[in-house]
Structures are given as C-alpha cells and as structure tokens.
C-alpha cells in the first residue's frame, strides 16, 4: 500500500522529488542559490565600493592580494596582508609594487566601512531606504583587493560580486517581460484559434524573422546618450525580453491548440467557466512545468545576450558593473599578456551559466514523467 502522500502529491511535489534524486542537479541548484545570494548581498561581501569612490589610486593594475595565514617563521597567525609599497625600478624606470611583510595588516571581521543601501523602496508617496555600513570583512589599514584592481584602481572583487547581481536581475527582468508577452500572445492565440490566431501568429513570425544581434545593435545605438545608466539598463532588459517572446509564445499556442479540444476543457465550459478562467485555471497550468523549465533554461541566454552587447560596448557601460562591462575591459593586449586577473569575472560567469543550464536540464527531466523510462 502506498503512502497517502503519493496520492495527494501535486504535479510540483512530483517534480521536486524527481529533481532531488539527481546529484548533479542538486549540486547545480546549491551553486545557483549561492551565486544568487552572493549577488544579493554583494555590498555586504565587498570591503570596498565597486566604483571610483572605492578605488585605490596607490594600487593601479595591482595583482590579487591573498591573505596569508603563516608568519615568516612558519607559525600560524591571524590572516594578514603585507603592505605594498610603490617603488621605482631603477632599470626599467617603472613603478612596481613591492611587498613589505614587516608591516602586517590584519583582516578584520564584520567591519564598519562604506555605507550602502540594503533595501530601497520607492512607492511614490513614501520612500523607504534601509542603509547599512556593515561588511563581512575589511582590513585594518589601507585596502584589500582579493581579485586585484583594474586600471583605475577599482576593486575587481567588489565589482564582480555586484556584476553578478546586475546580470542576474537584467536576466530576470527581461524574462518577466518575455513571459508576459509570450503567455498573452500564445494564450490568446491558442485558445481562440481561427482568425485571431492567424493575425497574432503573423505578427509573431514577423518578429521571429528579424535577426536578433543586428536588431540589438541597432536599438542600442539608437539609445540617446543622455540616458542615465539606469534607464539604459531597463531599456536593454526590455529590448532583450521583447524580442525573445516568439519561441515560447508559439510553443504555448501549439500546446493549447491541442489541449483545448480535451474533454476537461469542454467540461469546464459546460460548468459555466468564462474564457479567461479556462485559460488561467486549466490551460496555462497544463503547460506550467514546461514554461518554468523553458524560462530557467533561457536565463543564461539572456545573460549572454546582455554580456555580449556590453562586451561590444553597446549595452551597459562604465561605471555600471556588469559581467559584460568587466569583460570588455579585458580586451587590451596588455591585459591579455600580463594582467590575467581581469579574467576572474569569467569564472563566475561560466559558473553561473553552468548552474542555470544544469538546473534547467534537471528540471526538464523531472517535469517530463517519461524521461526516465527511455531505457
């Protein structure tokens, strides 16, 4: 006899159970959660402001500083950093950073430093902002640059963490726009069919045949220069989202065209349900698992789109922190030859994309009850 929970298990409970059965999906899920949390609490985690205010003029293009745990004599110590001093190299006449480990600078925990906004709500009539200056770690004197600094002396560690959040949020924003458009167009098109379907599908096809990269480029160039980086940010999310809806809309439509002839839809109609109730309560939920999976699988592509736009210098630009912006800095020959820490954001980017793809894959397999029987 099976447990009662088996019978009351909803679609999502079943999907969850199947998802957690796979170690790879679980690991990717945990990684994803860590990354999202890192992005969310980026300010708390970074000891210095990720902009010119937090730049270290004395440590330009500086290599990553790794905290040390052992003294020169080999005994254990609290984590500390050596002091870096600029000296002029007599032979090349270049300024170089010299480590002076006589002067130890110890790391501090839960340091109070620069102020950031933890929560910022603007509800029109009232503004609510919660600021904080608490940070996970800092250093007694001077600055700490775990991932080094770039050519203006900005801390790459802080910038990377903030960039994760910008890239993620642009992805989610674009997806929200895409989802709304897809559900609306696909839902109406599929449920009503006939002439409405023909018109909407013609429109969808028209959008679909426009190649995406040129249109992104054209629109990005068309954006007025006087726009603030925030406006640009929303505009880019909107453009990416608006041009990505046809695939999902079309799939939803096809699914609904088949599903609306099911008897339970007729049963709902005979029960007096209105069209919108049928679409909301019966048709879209029947496709929900697919929608969720498709959405999660698509996040990396949208992040990729933003990243490539910014990389080309057409999306976001300095001083905004996004992964694309950080990477576009790494185009210099000099960077590629000697300043390899510019590439550290790439690791996070790859991890993030990988996590999304693996979670999406796991969810897709979990949502398809027949996937396991392909023996």
């Amino acid at each position, binding site marked *: 006899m099976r447990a009662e929970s088996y*019978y009351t298990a909803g679609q999502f409970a079943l999907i969850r159970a199947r998802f957690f059965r796979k170690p790879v999906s679980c690991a990717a899920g945990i990684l994803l959660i860590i990354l999202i949390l890192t992005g969310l609490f980026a300010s708390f985690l970074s000891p210095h402001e990720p902009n010119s205010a937090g730049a270290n003029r004395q440590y330009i293009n500086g290599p990553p500083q790794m905290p040390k745990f052992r003294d020169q004599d080999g005994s254990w110590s609290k984590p500390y950093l050596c002091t870096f001093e600029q000296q002029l190299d007599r032979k090349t006449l270049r300024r170089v950073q010299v480590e002076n480990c006589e002067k130890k600078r110890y790391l501090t925990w839960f340091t109070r430093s620069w102020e950031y906004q933890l929560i910022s709500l603007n509800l029109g009539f009232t503004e609510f902002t919660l600021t904080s200056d608490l940070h996970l770690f800092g250093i007694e004197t001077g600055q700490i640059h775990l991932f080094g600094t770039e050519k203006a002396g900005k801390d790459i560690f802080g910038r990377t963490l903030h960039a994760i959040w910008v890239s993620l949020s642009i992805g989610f924003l674009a997806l929200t726009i895409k989802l709304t458009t897809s559900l609306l167009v696909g839902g109406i098109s599929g449920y009503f069919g006939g002439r409405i379907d023909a018109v909407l599908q013609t429109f969808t096809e028209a959008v679909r045949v426009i190649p995406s990269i040129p249109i992104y480029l054209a629109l990005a160039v068309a954006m007025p220069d006087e726009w603030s980086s925030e406006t640009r940010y929303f505009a880019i999310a909107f453009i990416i989202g608006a041009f990505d809806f046809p695939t999902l809309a079309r799939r939803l439509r096809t699914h609904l065209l088949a599903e609306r002839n099911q*008897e*339970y839809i007729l*049963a709902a*109609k*005979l*029960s*007096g349900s*209105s069209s919108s109730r049928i679409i909301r309560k019966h048709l879209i939920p*029947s496709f929900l698992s697919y929608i969720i999976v498709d959405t999660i699988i698509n996040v990396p592509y949208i992040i990729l789109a933003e990243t490539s736009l910014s990389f080309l210098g057409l999306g976001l630009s300095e001083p905004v922190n996004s992964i694309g912006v950080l990477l576009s800095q790494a185009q210099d020959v000099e960077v590629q030859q000697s300043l390899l820490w510019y590439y550290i954001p790439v690791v996070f980017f790859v991890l993030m994309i990988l996590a999304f793809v693996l979670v999406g894959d796991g969810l897709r397999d979990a949502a398809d009850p027949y996937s396991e029987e392909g023996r």
Partner: protein
Amino acid sequence: MSERLVDVKNLQVDFKTEEGWFTAVKNVSFHIEAGQVLGLVGESGSGKSVTAKSLMQLNSNNAIYRSPSQINLYNSGQSVPVLQLRSPKALRQLRGGLISMIFQEPMASFAPAISLGKQMVETIQLHLGFGKHEAELEAIHWLGQVGLTEPERRLRQYVHELSGGMRQRVMIATALSTKPRLLIADEPTTALDVTIQAQVLDLLLELRQRFGMAMLFITHDLGVIGKVADDLCVMQSGQIIEEGPVQKTLLTPSHEYTKRLLAAVPSLKKLQLKREGATKSSEQEPWSSLVKVKDLDIVYESSAGLLKRSSFTAVSAANFEIPTGKIIGLVGESGSGKTSLGRALLKAIPFQTGSIIYQFKDEKFDLNGLSGSSLKAFRQHAQMVFQDPYGSLNPRLTVRDIIAEPLEAMQLTKNRNETDLRVREIATRCRLDLEHLRRFPHAFSGGQRQRISIARALICRPSFIVADEAVAALDVSIQAEILDLMKELQRELGLTILFISHDLSVIANLCEQVIVMQHGKIVEQGPVEQIFLEPKEDYTRNLISAIPTLDNLGGLNAS
C-alpha cells in the same frame, strides 16, 4: 485427442516500475491444441494482454519472466522454447511466422503513410520468401479470403481510406498471410460497432473452420466469447481463476467473479420478463416533456482550402421530445451523430436550423439566441457526464476543485465554506470517500473517476443530464456499479437523463425510452421493450440481432 500446439507453464511476468516490482501475471498455465479456440476473459489490468504478448516475447523491456515460467511451442514435431529465444532471427520467425496477432485498434496497427499493399507484401516476402510479384498475388488472394471486394484496389489504398470493419479485415488478412500456427486476437472487435463486430466474428469463425487454425481470443465480453471459443480461461488480477469448456463454464460458473461478469451480459429474455412484470400500466401514464427538439440540423463547416469551405451534416431534421424524469437512451453506431446531438442539446456546439426548447419547473429556455447570463442560468439546469474518465478531469486540479468548478465558475455560493459543504454533500451522495477530495485524479481508477465526473455534473443541482457514453470506457463490473448509481440518483433527485451509448445491452438495462439514430437521422423512437422486442425498422432489427448474447448458448458450440 489432437496435437498439442502451445504449452504455457507457471508463467509469471514482473514489471519494474518507479514504485518497485509489479507482478502482472502470476502462475498462469494453460495449453492450446491445434485447431482449438481458447478464450481469455478478464477486465483491464487482469493480465490477459501481458499473457498473450509473452507468447511472442512482445512485452516492454522492463518486463521480466520469472523462472519457472515456461512457454513451449510445438512446430512440426519440434519444441520451441519461446522465452529462451534471443536471436533476432529466431524471434522474427516466431513473431508473424509461427504466431500472428490482431490488435484492438486497426487504425493504429497500420502505418498511416504506407499503402496497405506494401505492408502486406513486405510481411509475406519476409516470412515466406516470396518474390515481389508472387507476394502481391498472395496478398490479393488473402484479401479475397477475408471477404473484401476489389482486393487489387485495396492494395493501393491507405488505412484511413477504409472503414473500421474493412481495416480489421485487412489486419486479419495480413495476420493470416504468413500461415501462422496460432492466431492471437486481442480484443479484435471491441473498437467496432455491433453490426461490424458480428461480421468480423463470423469471418473469424468461418476462417477457423476452413483452415483449422488455433486461436487465442482475448476479450472482456462474455457474449463474444460464448460465440467463438471452445474453451475459456477467466483471469483476475494476474491469475486464472476459472477454466473449462465454454458452455459448461458459462452455464454453471463456479467462481463468484465469473458470475458477476455473466450478470452484465445482456439478455433479451430478462427484458421480456421485465415487460411481462410491468404490463401496460406505465405506457399509458401521461408525461410532460422537458425538451422539445424541432427540425434540428447540425452542420460542421471546415475550411478545406484558402477560400473553399466544405461542410458535413452531422444531424439532419431531428424531431423528438424528452419526457421529464426518465432515462432516455440514444443509440446508434459510431458516426451516427448521437454525440453531436447530445452536445447541441447543451449548447456545447452550435446548431444551424431548428429549435431546442426546454421547459424546466419554473423556467423556460430557448437555446436559440441564448448567451451571456441566460446561458449561465441554463448551465445550472443542464449538465454533462463524459465518456472518457481520464480526459474529462483536469489532472492538475484536486478532486475537490474539480467538483467545485461549476459552483466557483458560476459563483453560485456565497463563500468557500458553503462550496465545501456542497462538495462534501454531493461527494457522499456519489459514494466518494471524503478523504479523497484532496487527492488528484491520477490516484483513482476509471470507475472512481466517473463518480467524480457525475458529482461535478450534479453539484449545481441540475434537472437534466446528458451522459455521453458514460460507461463505455469502464470494465463490465464497474459499469454495473456506475449504472446503479445513476439509476439511484435519477430516482432520488428526479433527474432526466439522456444516456448516449453504442452499447445496446447497457441501454436495455438502464433506459425506459430509446431513440435510435443512423446517419444523422432518427430512425425509431419508443419504449425500450418495444424497440428491443418488436423493432419496426430494418436497421433497428439488424442492430438488435447483432448483439452477442448468451440466450442461445445451448446450440451454438455443438458444431
């Protein structure tokens, strides 16, 4: 005694599923002699198809044959251990060469995009080693043998071009063309109309007499088995619970389950007795009509091309009345327009000309020009119970939500508590366990699902129900339960039920009035006893005589 053909010993088949091992067939032993027809009877899930498929090793990959399972096939003195065969060549020779199979759904058994001839010729070439031309002649020969006209033309046709009965004939011809020792027929007539079923059964019997072929005949219908089989095995949950010669088993069944199956078989004698019991008294009773249908036409239009429109008349010039507070049967073969008629009565599909006028106790509805709020008001009075207990319940809603749908959609209750109260009340009425309301439909069997469907139809307290093939997808014993429930509800709530069915036995047991339809027209209409015992029209007479009954079991198998 004749020669032994197949020997099945201690067959046990287990399936590996997500929830663990599932034993489909357990300790099944039987044997078939050359030229013998063995009937295998049981309800869905009883393991009869798995047993048959084991004979050809056709079960899906997650099936395991537990030792000491043994199947031996005797072919010209040699014994073939079926379950031990592994090589593709040996399996191919077994499947099609030694044993052929006919399936339930002939439409699904042929590839839709390859001509029938090609499929037949390929089979013959493969198994008999004929050349192409020879194989074609052979195919034509067999198509003629199964009683198809113009066999040459059939070779070039595709499966969708033939009617259901013709498809099944081609299927039989294909199965026989390789000259198998054993023919397995898995519910070969279940998907067919009664009259076609009678023809196919006659054909099988005739072929059997002519070629002396052994057959394993699987069905859930004891009436059919009584007609074709010599011996009978009754299966229940994977085991054989009763076996013996057909006549003896059916006339004096020993197992309780067999008796229950037998009770569900229609018997015209019972109907006669019923009529003699309730003489003229009921016929003269005056009745008021609930629905008046006048000159109803239902035409489906479809756009065949960009500008062309083609139309198909499903129902033409239907005139009838439905009396209040009775169960009325609507019978006809597939394609006769009975479903269209039932749906038009609920305004689920539009109708072109004619009128449908309802007279409920306090309200009158003319379906012409009914829309918006008045349509919603009408929906409270008339509801539907569907055929497919799987497709008609949304798998993503809990049973409670499914039953509450009409109340919530039409906002008939003031708050959630009242809705819950109504749901619990109707669920108890339909004998659903209240604890099950939180479950999802996938946890229920077909019969329970149909109870849910009935509860949903009844929750807004309608006075008229259209039940479209409401028990056609259910097993016989569960059919009986659902029919009893419907009868009881009808009596208690004073419902009027239009019961649409192709199954005349169900109609005979349930209904008081019958309407017979053919090709979109109403052929005959009257009290059930009159229609079944003294049909006036030829069509009705053919329909009735085609019902496989056990009434004349005594003489049939003597030959």
